[in-house]
């Protein structure tokens, strides 16, 4: 195939709009007659609403309506199981039941934001409260089995081994420890927002979502209207990380209020509200037990994970990480009266690789082996669960190149050996790993008379660079400069595959591979359609020729000594455009091969001897993600994942008060995320080995990859620096001083 643009480090095609402020995110739309909604949240975690007094709020200046279960905006429960399972099974304000602290119990709509906000403070709610179950750790011992179809146990035993405990008992050495982390919040910089307006029975809603098609389905189900009557527009999304994969009550309530009031309504959740009215990543408690021979060969891995969410299964990474004859990986689930959990970047693998990769470091230390050497002794060339060989895996090269770039040979194996003034300096490493996923997506490719080509896909760009990849995919396949491609995404009316998961949009690091194959196939069909038009239209210079005799190359049709660019052709024939819409056929041979994205992280951390403050001072990531489609945006994804994981390691966690279920730190001053000064230069290196058995372009996804492993590399470096092993995230100074 022509390699006109794939692989180039291209500036974002939407970059100019973003640096000038021209990019319109959901809340940046101000249609005429706009009213503003503001929520009142519950101040108990469990119980029922005895009464709501909305009289003062209703009488406040500018107030148009105060809604609550007593004056409801009716929403139907979601039917799609994705919405039920990943999102909310229960929409807000439909009954008097309070299920968690910070639940939406009333919504004030007023002429202005200030009026709605201040009137919301006048709503008085009385409750019959019950004590909530809000203490995750207290729930761990009594955790239940997961609800299928998720969270299945994995048991793989070598011939003659009766169970995992027998395999562990027969191991020469074992290591067992518990690794925990608190709930995390996506905290995209753009809070969930919506501007909703109705025209007769049809809804147009500006709302940033990872999957516009799924979002439209959720809205249609909730509002009881046909899906085709819902138009979701969200070309710019201010971050998602899984939190905007499904639809949350604020958006549905905006649409319902706009319908009831017959005027456009804007809703912007506040940062504080975001913590409780949308989903979060579950807390996790993972017990890892490794069995090995003295030479470091793994003989058994037993993982018991406990979370509040079936899909977030930290027991899973051993299915993708190391060669091991005996695996027993289980998940248990705790039900709590706390806000709803959902998926977040690298679900299961984020917490799971923290545990596994710390445990590997601890085992290496016990056995006196270099951590890389231990990993190489257990190097998997086939997938540990399926037994299929990896089509393309170069993790060994990642270790080698990374060690070289980082200067791993200078590491002292003995903890607390290196100091720099008052700072203890340590190095750590870890593997990052994530099974690859891609979907059979649909795309539309349309040649237009003005000489440009629209390339459209029903997905979203959350900052990943998907819009740029979409343009590059079109340019590459059609042999045109990127400047002649008009990418379109973030709109529910764009083509979507009838089957499969592609309607979920940008999830599971699948967007790039999905876009590439969808655009590849649609562009091929568009070329066929263009040629068919050229030979059939009476005004065309190719009229009457056999389609076989007309060739397309780089935007130009040629045949029978005639030649015309597609823009010229369409102008001549008076046709605005010729298009094809198609759903991709995926070529990956999953019968014979397994596919994985992996890499190696190296971190240097400095810990202050007196204050216990840990500073990340150097990072190297070497990544094997197949073909790198856009080196610039891919680098951003990898470095961005490192930043978020540095937060996981050192800063982040929601503190749920056990007695009340209230999140004590629901704001940016108390829920700490990394700021610029927390992050050193990040050395990112891509191996760029195309995985052509996965797709013709050889690209695997990488958006979530550095959501794995980094926290362990940091914890391992801290151990190397201080001799203190912290297994409970985040690693705050108090844990290093005690």
């Amino acid at each position: 195939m022509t390699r006109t643009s794939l692989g180039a480090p291209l500036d974002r095609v939407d970059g100019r709009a973003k640096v000038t402020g021209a990019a319109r995110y959901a809340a940046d739309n101000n249609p005429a007659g706009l009213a503003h909604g503001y929520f009142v949240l519950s101040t108990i975690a469990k119980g029922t609403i005895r009464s709501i007094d909305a009289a003062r709020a209703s009488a406040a200046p500018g107030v148009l309506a105060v809604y609550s279960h007593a004056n409801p905006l009716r929403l139907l429960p979601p039917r799609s199981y994705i919405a039920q399972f990943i999102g909310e099974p229960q929409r807000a304000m439909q009954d008097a039941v309070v299920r968690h602290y910070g639940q939406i119990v009333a919504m004030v709509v007023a002429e202005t934001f200030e009026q709605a906000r201040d009137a919301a403070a006048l709503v008085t709610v009385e409750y019959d409260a019950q004590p909530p179950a809000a203490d995750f750790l207290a729930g761990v011992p009594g955790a239940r089995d997961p609800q299928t179809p998720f969270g299945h146990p994995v048991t793989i035993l070598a011939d003659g081994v009766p169970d995992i405990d027998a395999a562990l008992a027969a191991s020469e050495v074992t290591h067992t420890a518990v690794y925990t982390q608190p709930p995390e919040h996506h905290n995209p910089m753009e809070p969930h927002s919506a501007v909703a307006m109705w025209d007769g029975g049809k809804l147009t809603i500006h709302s940033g979502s990872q999957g516009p098609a799924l979002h439209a389905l959720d809205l249609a189900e909730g509002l009881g209207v046909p899906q085709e009557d819902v138009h979701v527009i969200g070309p710019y999304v201010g971050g998602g990380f899984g939190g905007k994969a499904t639809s949350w009550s604020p958006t549905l309530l905006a649409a319902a209020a706009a319908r009831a009031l017959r005027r456009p309504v804007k809703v912007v959740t506040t940062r504080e509200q975001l913590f409780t009215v949308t989903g979060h990543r579950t807390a996790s408690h993972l017990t890892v037990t490794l069995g090995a021979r003295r030479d470091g060969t793994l003989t058994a891995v037993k993982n018991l994970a406990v979370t509040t969410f079936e899909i977030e299964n930290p027991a899973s990474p051993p299915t993708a990480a190391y060669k091991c004859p005996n695996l027993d990986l289980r998940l248990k689930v705790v039900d709590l009266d706390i806000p709803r959990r959902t998926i977040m970047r690298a679900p299961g693998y984020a917490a799971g690789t923290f545990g596994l990769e710390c445990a590997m470091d601890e085992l290496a230390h016990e056995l006196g082996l270099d951590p890389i050497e231990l990993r190489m002794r257990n190097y998997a060339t086939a997938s540990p669960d399926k037994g299929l060989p990896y089509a393309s895996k170069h993790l060994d090269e990642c270790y080698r190149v990374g060690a070289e770039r980082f200067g791993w040979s200078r590491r002292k194996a003995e903890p607390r050996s290196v100091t720099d003034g008052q700072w203890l300096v340590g190095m750590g490493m870890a593997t990052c790993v994530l099974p690859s996923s891609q979907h059979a997506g649909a795309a539309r490719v349309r040649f237009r008379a003005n000489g440009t080509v629209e390339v459209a896909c029903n997905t979203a760009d959350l900052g990943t660079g998907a819009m740029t990849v979409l343009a590059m995919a079109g340019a590459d396949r059609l042999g045109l400069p990127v400047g002649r491609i008009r990418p379109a995404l973030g709109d529910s009316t764009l083509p979507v595959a009838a089957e499969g998961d592609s309607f979920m949009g940008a999830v599971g690091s699948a967007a790039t591979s999905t876009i590439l194959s969808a655009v590849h196939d649609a562009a091929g069909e568009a070329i066929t359609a263009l040629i068919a038009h050229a030979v059939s239209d009476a005004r065309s210079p190719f009229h009457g020729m056999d389609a076989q005799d007309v060739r397309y190359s780089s935007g130009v049709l040629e045949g029978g000594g005639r030649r015309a660019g597609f823009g010229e052709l369409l102008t001549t024939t008076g046709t605005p455009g010729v298009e094809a819409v198609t759903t991709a056929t995926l070529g990956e041979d999953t019968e014979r091969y397994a596919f994985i994205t992996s890499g190696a992280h190296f971190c240097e951390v400095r810990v202050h001897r007196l204050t216990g403050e840990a500073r990340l001072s150097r990072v190297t990531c070497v990544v094997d993600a197949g073909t790198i489609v856009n080196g610039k945006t891919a680098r951003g994804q990898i470095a961005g994942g490192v930043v978020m994981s540095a937060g996981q390691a050192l800063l982040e966690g929601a503190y749920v008060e056990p007695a009340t279920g209230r999140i004590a730190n629901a704001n940016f001053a108390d829920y700490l995320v990394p700021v610029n000064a927390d992050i050193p230069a990040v050395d990112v290196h891509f191996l760029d080995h195309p995985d052509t058995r996965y797709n013709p372009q050889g690209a695997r996804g990488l958006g979530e990859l550095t959501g794995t492993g980094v926290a362990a590399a940091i914890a391992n470096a801290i151990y190397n620096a201080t001799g203190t092993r912290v297994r409970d995230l985040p690693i705050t100074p108090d844990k290093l001083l005690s």
Partner: protein
Amino acid sequence: MEQASEPERGVSRRGFLATSAAAAALAAGTAGAPSPAAAATAGPARAGASVVRVTLRVNGRERTLSLDPRVTLLDALRERLDLTGTKKGCDRGQCGACTVHVEGRRVLSCLTLAAGLDGKAVTTVEGLARGDELHPVQRAFLECDGLQCGFCTPGQIMSAVALIREGHAGSEEEIREFMSGNICRCGAYPGIVAAVKAAGERG
């Protein structure tokens, strides 16, 4: 971090407190009064409504607004002037997404009441480029990929423009420190540092 070394030029902390207090008093004094409602957007207010008239010079253009005194500069820009480039990430002064310049100095527009800025010059991200030609800092953010989702970007750029002007882009360390009031959840920090450095060097 801000030093009041140029007494008359900026919004001093004391000046801010004074105007805030005035605004608060206005708001309190008229509680329960009829709605200023859409008066904020255009036209004269209804009789008795609590409204403040403010004239701002926004990106070089005089804009006179009749405002509910509770309106922040951020909401005045976004909801009344349709200048939506400036973003609301927290509305609490904790994220920097709303950073704009008032009289050439960085302020968090979510913590600044519009009513207190009569006669002041406000620059937003929309006011940086000259027609099609990007401001050097905008160009550097684009080239160095100092952004992902782009939501924090206007605030990052407004901070960067100011800190370069103040001479705080001397080293990567200094840039990191001075850019730390602007959260980027996408984690574009390495690209942001590279962009500020590049723009600072270009001068």
